């Protein structure tokens, strides 16, 4: 046995040293790529550009190997790796072993750098024969960012730390993170952040090389759309996790780490719209370069906020050493891009001017202003403690009510414009056409207001009423657009209505995919408005057998059961729910208690003193959710726990477990009143449904058209034909 341990230990040391060497090599490759890219950009020598590209590929390969080594270490429970010892254990399920890597500072930086290297390799491969002036500089920027993150790992947060001697068991994963949403959330979020670096790098390259037509936008459009989608998925997962797993019942708290992901998503949304204006009308060039630099800076800021400890947040921050360097990078990126943009202003002049307010381009400009304004408000609120400290010496913080007050009006306006935009055309829309197009949806909106005022108390919640009206406007407008598309095509080709619709939409996936995104957003906002304004929220204290009424529902606390296993103690409450006298089912909100490693808690007490998580009892329907959480009162057990700690301390573990089971059984048979939180959340499910629809629309919009691949092929075939002196046949 000792020999085995020694071998494993030596193996771990060797592997961690090899892993550190891989990181060092990745850093060198990145630095070389940055330098070679700059040199290739300045001299135009394509060999250096090619060499830089290969260095990026090498960086990707090296980081992939590093990730593989770490994941294998997790799978093998190799606790010689400090990372594995601190974040995993032999009892951690396999799925969470694989995802534990990014629950740590070091591992999440590795994830960032790895995804960046893969995405950079991808875009450089795709553009290896194009955009000669821009690519060298874009390579340098991407490699530079990669070098920064790898350097950060090597010098500040080494993932390949080793433990000597290796412990026999690891610390395990925090129970709150043992959840599929939380496991997938970081890679989605980081992919979102990383993919924004691609258009950013090409923008910087375009600025440096003074090639400021729309080619950098076209090349990186799909990366921008991917970034937006992944960031959106990250936001969706985070809010769904909060709703489903935390005993709070909310999905958004305006916490700094939430805002950190929302701000780049908002500015990125503005970017995605604004670049369309440049492509079609040659306008808003300064907006576009500023928006992408702003989006990427906000991505870095988001990465910084979650690690730095400068703001009070629900995520506790330890003393982290990576905050300073990240802030320096943000400053370099923000100031550097500003200087670059200002120096190229003469080349960013618009080709045309906005002629009319009744055009899509002017709506997109308003859209830019609203989204950036919204991000600015959120930025102000998030950083207010630091701003106030700077000016007054005192830290003042702003909470959710402030955010809601200022975000709501802007959000409401955005819902309206989400519907107006698709109705307008590029170029000037005639006033009579505008009247005609706006009339239908406008009437729908008015009808919605009238109906809601008549059948509900929506009149007491004006903002929600506006959201419903504007969302109805938007959905009607979008439906009209789809109908018009099918009708126009039908009049041209005589196809059946469904086929005409499919053909028309298929031929312009970008536009109609975008409309589907808008529809999804409108639904999400309906869900948000309904569940925030019309929520019924009650804290109840119930004895077994007691009944209470919340909104339309009657809830009866039937019984308490327990479900203990070596991993955790579980107390499960059983509620029967009825409405209008009819039973509609049962809910079983529960509370899990994970044992603590703290020796001072005592052998019995440690089972009650460790982490606890909630299992929410949720009943989801299209009309709304019934959300329940349960908090047992364990204080009555304290005397028994203390007695157990004293008397059973020297008994074997099996006896202690028996005692705990007996204690739990006794409690369950005669429990004291427990606290329940019950929330009736109308229409909240539409938030998730709307978000999924929006993401599906984004995927559809970004789905690559066959044309682009065929185009390059056709170009080569044409050249071949010319050189052979014969006409080619298209294959």
């Amino acid at each position, binding site marked *: 046995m000792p020999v085995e341990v020694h071998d494993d230990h030596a193996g771990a040391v060797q592997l961690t040293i090899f892993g550190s060497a891989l990181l060092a090599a990745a850093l060198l490759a990145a630095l070389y790529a940055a330098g070679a890219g700059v040199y290739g950009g300045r001299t135009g020598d394509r060999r250096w550009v090619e060499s830089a590209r290969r260095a990026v590929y090498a960086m990707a390969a090296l980081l992939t190997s590093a990730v593989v080594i770490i994941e294998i270490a997790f799978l093998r429970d190799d606790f010689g790796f400090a990372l594995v010892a601190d974040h995993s254990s032999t009892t951690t399920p396999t799925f969470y072993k694989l995802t534990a890597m990014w629950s740590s500072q070091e591992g999440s930086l590795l994830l960032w750098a790895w995804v960046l290297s893969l995405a950079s390799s991808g875009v450089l491969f795709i553009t290896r024969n194009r955009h000669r002036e821009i690519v060298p500089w874009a390579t340098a920027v991407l490699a530079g960012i990669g070098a920064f993150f790898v350097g950060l790992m090597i010098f500040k947060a080494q993932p390949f730390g080793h433990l000597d001697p290796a412990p026999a068991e690891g610390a395990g994963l925090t129970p709150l993170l043992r959840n599929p949403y939380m496991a997938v959330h970081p890679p989605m979020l980081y992919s979102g952040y990383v993919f924004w670096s691609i258009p950013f790098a090409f923008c910087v390259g375009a600025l440096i090389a003074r090639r400021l037509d729309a080619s950098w936008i076209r090349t990186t459009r799909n990366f921008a759309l991917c970034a937006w989608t992944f960031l959106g998925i990250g936001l969706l997962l985070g809010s769904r996790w909060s709703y489903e797993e935390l005993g709070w019942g909310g999905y958004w708290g305006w916490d700094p780490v939430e805002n950190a992901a929302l701000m780049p998503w908002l500015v990125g949304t503005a970017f995605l719209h604004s670049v369309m204006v440049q492509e079609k009308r040659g306008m808003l060039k300064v907006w576009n370069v500023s928006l992408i630099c702003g989006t990427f800076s906000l991505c870095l800021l988001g990465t910084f906020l979650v690690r730095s400890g400068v703001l009070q947040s629900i995520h506790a921050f*330890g003393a982290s050493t990576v905050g300073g360097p990240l802030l320096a990078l943000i400053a370099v990126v923000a100031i550097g891009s500003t200087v670059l943009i200002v120096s190229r202003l003469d080349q960013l002049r618009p080709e045309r001017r906005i002629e009319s307010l009744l055009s899509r381009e002017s709506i997109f400009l308003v859209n830019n202003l609203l989204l950036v*304004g919204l991000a600015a408000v959120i930025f102000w609120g998030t950083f207010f403690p630091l701003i*106030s400290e700077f000016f007054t010496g005192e830290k003042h913080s702003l909470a959710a009510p402030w955010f809601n007050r200022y975000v709501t009006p802007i959000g409401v306006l955005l819902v309206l414009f989400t519907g107006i935009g698709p109705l307008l055309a590029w170029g000037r829309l005639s006033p009579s056409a505008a009247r005609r197009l706006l009339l239908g949806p406008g009437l729908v909106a008015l009808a919605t207001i009238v109906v809601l005022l008549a059948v509900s108390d929506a009149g007491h919640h004006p903002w929600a009423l506006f959201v419903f009206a504007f969302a109805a406007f938007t959905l009607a407008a979008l439906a009209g657009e789809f109908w018009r598309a099918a009708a126009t095509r039908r009049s041209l080709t005589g196809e059946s209505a469904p086929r005409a619709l499919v053909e028309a939409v298929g031929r312009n996936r970008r536009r109609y995919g975008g409309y589907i995104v808008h529809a999804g957003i409108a639904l999400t906002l309906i869900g948000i408005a309904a569940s925030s304004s019309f929520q019924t929220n009650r804290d109840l204290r119930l004895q077994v057998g007691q009944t209470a009424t919340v909104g339309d529902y009657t809830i009866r606390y039937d019984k308490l059961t327990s479900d203990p296993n070596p991993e955790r103690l579980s107390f499960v409450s059983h509620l029967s729910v009825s409405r209008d006298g009819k039973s509609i089912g049962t809910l079983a909100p529960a509370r899990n208690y994970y044992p603590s490693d703290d020796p001072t808690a005592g052998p019995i007490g440690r089972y009650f003193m460790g982490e606890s998580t909630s299992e929410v009892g949720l009943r989801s329907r299209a009309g709304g959710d019934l959300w329940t959480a349960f908090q047992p009162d364990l204080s009555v057990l304290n005397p028994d726990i203390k007695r157990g700690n004293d008397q059973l301390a020297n008994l074997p573990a099996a006896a202690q477990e028996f005692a705990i089971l007996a204690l739990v059984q006794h409690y369950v048979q005669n429990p004291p009143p427990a606290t329940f939180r019950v929330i009736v959340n109308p229409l909240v499910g539409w938030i998730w449904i709307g978000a999924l629809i929006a993401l599906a629309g984004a995927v559809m919009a970004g789905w690559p058209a066959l044309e682009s691949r065929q185009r390059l092929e056709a170009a080569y075939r044409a050249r071949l034909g010319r050189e052979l002196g014969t006409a080619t046949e298209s294959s």
Partner: protein
Amino acid sequence: MDPSRKRKIRLVIALSAAVLLAAGLVYTSFSASTEAKEPSQLLQSDPSGTYELTGKVVPGSIQHAGDELNFKVSDRDGTDPIPVSYSGEVPDPFRDGREVIVTGKLQDGTFVGERDSLVTKCPSKFTTTTPGQSS
């Protein structure tokens, strides 16, 4: 009016609106905010008024009295404990030694927390600890 003059007017209007809105935002945020203080700061300063108390839950100080939760909050280093009385939703991670934020007023030496204002921080994910120490 020629187009460029129209554009300039629009720009001026837009900028003025932005400045006014920003000024309004700035002005109201100071009055809407609550000041954050640690227990040591709270004991030293003017005790009236609503504050956001930030600190660590003193181990062993948690007591449930029916609907009410009583505990003590100290500075991060454990000094200057202040008794807190709170009723409302208690977040999952709340226990001894955790960092908390609770909004309320100091009354007769006890910090009375506003309903549902208790925030407990999730245990630290991103500390760069020396290898072998658990966070």
